[in-house]
Each structure stands twice: as C-alpha cells, then as structure tokens.
C-alpha cells in the first residue's frame, strides 16, 4: 500500500481544473472531487494510517502505541540483514542481466534473421505466463533428483547440483529464472528503442567506412540510453520488491538463505505481527524510494534533449 503513494493523481486533477487554457475545462470542478476523494480514501489515508500503525503493537482489534519499538525490533531481526543483502543481490543481478541480455537479444531480433517474428514471440512468451506458474514449473524442473534439468545433465555425465536446495545456490537459481521470465520486456523495450534510431545515422556511418562494432558503440548504444534507463529502473524496482517468484520457488529457504525483505515482511504478517510487518513495509518503502528516486533524477538529467 505504502509504495503506491503517488501525488500525481491530485496534481493532475487540480492542474486540469485550473482554467489555464483559454477555454474552460469542459468538466465542472466537482467532477474532480470524486477521483480526488477516491485517491484520498484508497491511497492517502491507508498510507498515513500505515505510518501510524507501524508505531503500534497491533492485533487488528486493539492497538497499543509503542513508539519506535517495532523499528528497533525489525532491525534486530536476525534474518533481516541477510534479507537486505539478498534483496540487493537479487535486484542488481537481475537488472544487470536484463540490460546486457536484453540489449543483445534486441540487437539480434532487429537484425535481418530468419524467423524473426517467431523468435520475438518466443522471447516475449514467458512474460505472459503467471509468475507463480513459472515458479512452480521451475521448482519441478530444478528438482535435484527427479528434475528434468539434472536428469539431462546426468545423461551427459554431469552431476547437477541441488539448484534450489543448496543454500549457496538457491538465490542464484531464482535470479536465473527471474531473468528468463523478465527478459522479454527488456528486449521489447530495446527493440522499440532500436527501431526508433533513424537509419540515416547508420547509412552515414557506413559511407564513412565504420565497422559494425563501431556503429554499435557509437550510434546504437548512446541512442539507447532512454531504453536502458527504463529497463534499469523497471527491473530494479521489480527486483527490490520481488516476492512472488521467490515464494513460489523456495519460500525463502532452505532456512533463510533466499529470504528477501518482502518475504521476511510477509512471514511477519502471516505470524500476526501486524505492527511489526507494517514497520517493515515502511522501511521497504523508504529504501526503494531512496534508491530509485535519485537514480531516476540522475538518468533523466543525463538524457540528451532531442
């Protein structure tokens, strides 16, 4: 709930209501009262309520104000430090992999190859499948003894590891699946970015005798900056609050070795620690905002005005 707070709804409403343009808005002012009210009731109030409840011991029927105790308890949570580490590893590795692989696939799928349309759909297909479905499928495929992956490896004489049961490997297996599932979106954004680059640049470069590699680094890559920004931001935000795939595949296990902040918070909700887990959500909100907002400002500033 917390992370959905965006003041844009209210601003848009008031901007449009203001008779800045010569013609008055065709809608009367009260027309905007309804979305405004909805915004306040559905987003603003719950957000501020959650700030309050994070300061209480809450059993749904009774609350007891305990100040910052929940935050102290939350930060003392033994699994939290590892949860944070895992979250950052998860977010950075998935977004890095999506940038690199997405761009490579984008280049491949905009070049003139056979079956391009087919390959584009194949790459995009995993995006359409439900995350939980993907998680459960891979859980079966990656089973250390009966899974297809290790059986295939065994056929060529390799003993496959316990992808999801080896404590040092579980998190990375989930990251791999996340990249597989999310790569389609990244590729799509890159394809759109590449198609938008005017062919004249390439033609001019060719006339000047540049190689394919030079064209990629001097034309494609710089002009793909907006696409890269989008991919990084989207996958970073997605990675920081990732939960469903991890929950479907490992439930944070074995033990706590693939626990991320979101799954730590979820377990606290499950246990009925409502105040504590709300405090966790406030922390998650602040952390995500602290990483993404400056990043977004930085990238947008770097973007060359076109």
């Amino acid at each position, binding site marked *: 709930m917390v992370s959905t707070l965006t003041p844009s709804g209210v601003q848009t409403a008031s901007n449009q209501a203001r008779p800045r343009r010569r013609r008055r808005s065709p809608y009367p002012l009260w027309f905007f009262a309804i979305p405004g009210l909805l915004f306040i009731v559905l987003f603003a109030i719950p957000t501020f309520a959650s700030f309050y409840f994070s300061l209480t011991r809450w059993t749904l029927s009774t609350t007891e104000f305990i100040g910052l105790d929940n935050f102290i308890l939350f930060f*003392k949570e033994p699994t939290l430090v590892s949860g944070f580490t895992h979250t950052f590893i998860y977010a950075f590795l998935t977004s890095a992999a999506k940038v690199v692989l997405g761009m490579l696939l984008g280049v491949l799928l905009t070049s003139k190859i056979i079956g391009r349309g087919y390959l584009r759909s194949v790459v995009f297909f995993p995006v359409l499948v439900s995350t939980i479905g993907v998680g459960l499928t891979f859980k079966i495929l990656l089973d*250390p003894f009966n899974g297809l992956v290790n059986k295939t490896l065994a056929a060529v004489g390799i003993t496959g590891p316990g992808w999801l049961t080896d404590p040092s490997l579980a998190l990375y297996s989930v990251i791999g699946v996340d990249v597989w599932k999310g790569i389609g979106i990244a590729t799509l954004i890159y394809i759109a970015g590449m198609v938008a680059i005017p062919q004249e640049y390439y033609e001019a470069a060719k006339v000047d005798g540049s190689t394919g590699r030079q064209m990629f680094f001097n034309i494609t890559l710089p002009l793909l900056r907006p696409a890269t920004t989008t991919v990084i931001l989207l996958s970073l935000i997605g990675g920081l609050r990732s939960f469903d795939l991890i929950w479907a595949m490992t*439930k944070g296990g*074995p*033990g*706590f070795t693939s626990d991320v902040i979101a799954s730590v918070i979820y*377990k606290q909700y499950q*246990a009925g620690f409502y105040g504590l887990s709300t405090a966790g959500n406030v922390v998650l909100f602040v952390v995500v905002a602290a990483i993404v907002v400056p990043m977004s400002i930085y990238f947008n500033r770097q973007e060359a005005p076109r």
Partner: protein
Amino acid sequence: MLPVRIHRFARPLLAATAIATILAGCSVGSVGGGGDSGSAGATNITVLYGTGTANDTLFKALSDGFTAANPDIKLTLETQPTGTEGDNLTKTKLSTGEMADVFYYNSGSLFQALNPDTNLAPLTDQPWVDQLSAEMKTVVSTPNGTYGAPLGTTFAGGVLYNKKVYDKLGLKVPTSWAEFDANNKKILADGKVTPIEQTFGDTWTSQLFVLGDFANVAAQDPNWAADYTANKAKYSDQPALQAFKNQQQTHADGYYNKNFASAKFDDGVKAIATGTAAHYPMLTAVLSTVVQNYPENVDDVGFFPLPAQDAANTQMTLWLPNAIYIPKTTEGAKLDAAKKFVAWVNSTEGCAVQQKAGSVSGPYAISSCTLPDSVPAAVKDMQPYLDNKKVSPALEFLSPIKGPNLENITVEVGSGISSAEKGAKQYDEDVKKQAQQLGLEGW
C-alpha cells in the same frame, strides 16, 4: 497459533479419507442445513466449525447422526476459515455476541485466549466431564470450570519406525538417545535403507526433533513450560537445547536420505511405510495417510517417542484434540439442545460416527469413546506410555508462545547451514516477538 498449525498438519491427511467418502456420494454442498426452517416445536441450533474437507465430512456425519437420534432438534452447520483468520473471527464473534450456539475450536493456549470465564457457558456439571482424561481436562478448563468436550483422537509426536527393518536387522526399540544412535549406526552400516527420513521440501516436517522432544524436557524440568512463558527458560539452554543438538548430530552423522532437502511429506510417508527408511520423526496423525495410501503396510509402521539422553526421561509428547464449546450467548431451550449435542458427540453413537467419518491416530481423550479392535500398530505402541503415565502434552498446550520461524530454523540446523546453538538462539529471538505481540508479562 501453533495448535491451529499442528492440527492443520493432520488436516490434509484426514482430507484424504474424507475425499473417499465424498466420492462415495456424500455431498459437501449440502452443508449449511436443510432448506426448510424445520417443523413446529423443533429447536434449531447452529454449529460452527473451521472449513476443510475433513471437517465438512465429519460435521455432516455428526449432524445427520445427531438429528436422527433427536428428531426434535435441528442442526444448522456454519463454517469459517481456519488459521489466524479463524482465530480472529472466533474472538470477534464471541465479543460481539454473534457466535453460533456450538463451535469447534482448538484446545490449550488458543482456548485460554478466548477468555473462557466471561465468554463460554460452563459445562462443569455435565456427566461426561468425569470421563475426560486428566490432560484433556486441563486444556479445556480454567480454574473456574470446564468448558469443552473433545472431538477426535489424540496424536503423538515422536518417531515412526518400520517394523520389518527392525526385525530384519534385529534391532530393539530404543529408550535412550545412545540406543537410538546405535540403531542408526547399524542401519547405516547395513547400507540398504535410510536410517532417518527427513523431508524438508515440506518445511513443517522438520520441527519434530524439537516439538517431539518436549515431553523429555518436561520430564527433566516439570516447570519448564511455565518458566518459558515467563521468559525464564530458554531454548538456548539445556535441557531444551538438546533437541537442536540431536538434530544437528543426526545430519552430521549422515543418517538422512540423500534427497532430504527436496523430499516432500508424501515421500516420507512412502519411505516409512514401504521400508526404504527405518525412522521418520513425525506425528501419528499422519497414520491416516498410511491407511489411505499403503493399506497393506499399516502394521509395518510402529511408533516410539523421541528418546531422551537418559532413558529415565524418555516420555511421549501428546497432542490433544480440538474441542466443541458453547458460548454464553446460547440460552434457554437452545442451551439445553446444545448441551445435548456436546454430550452426544462422545457417546457410543457419537464415537461410532466419529470413527466412520474421521480416522484414528491415537487414543481418545475421553473414556466414553473406545478404540475399535483394529487400530494401526503405531497407535497400539502409544498405549504403554499412556498406561505408565510417561506422557506430557505438547508445549503448545502449556504455553501460548510459539515463534513463527521454527520450521525454517530447524531446516537450517538439520541441513547443516546453522549450528544447534545458533539455531536455538535465533528461535529464542523469534519467540520474543510472539510473546510481545501477545502482551505477556516479563518480555
């Protein structure tokens, strides 16, 4: 929290039995009572239970049986979710006076949390109260009175073992940890079967080393549960720490099946029933799964409690059944009818219905219900411990505190990710949150 969880252990298993009944033509869709409002003069009482296939079947059968015997009373069945949500609903309904005339709920600490003296109708003067076993009576009573009647059988937590494997290797049922360890060594040396089956693919199954050891802790320190609730006794100290140490050691000694990290509960049941594993630390509530899936192997599966270090301290940890209660808001003719129903459930007729619609995983907690002649061998193995009073209720019946992360911690200890000391300490921290949430004193 835990009573629900543990009892939920049993639910999927009971569900298997229930499905068979449904397939046989008994429709759950009819739950909720008949369409007409009953003939004139009939008393109509409502009965509330936590939804689930096993419960649906059981309550439908109880309702049919009871109304056949008492045509002047009509029962309307109501359901609500189980788990934490059910806990909250139960408390809300009781405090707003909207509770059904009879309801089915956990015994032990969750029952105590209902504030029985103000919310429930005392049943102390009912004739069946004298027939309750001593353990059962404490978990449905306050110092002021008794409030509930058990529904279902007790079940124990300990070690399920394969009798054929024991016969073949000439092993004896161990009474101390050293004997247990010696048996495991022999089985390992023989090399044909797994000494101890573990199934961390379903994390809850990893807790039995700790939960099933509680009776041994209680034998060494009878006040442990009270001290624990008062923040004086800790899992990171002996005697409770031993459970974590034992789990760590069994992993280090290589007694587990090689797929312990990914195996599921069903794999465990299969292994212990068919004899590919010798031991499986588990609840006897799972016997219904054995009955369902491996009927020819039922009597190959035996039971013994988790052995303590010293044989003198080895006791059986017993889980008690849920109970049915009457809220204070039920009055007059409805109260009489409700009391009649509660008494009927554990009568000869009621017990017969329970046995037909449910399954037997241990002795009954009330003497008016007796076990049928043919019970699984493991249930028979429980009897001597009950007869010799070498038994303690599980910790969840003696203390309201159970940390939510125990199953993950025991997976870490049992997989060698974490040490026993570290795991026990982590669990003590985990428990603290629960105690504070409950507003207990001394935390």
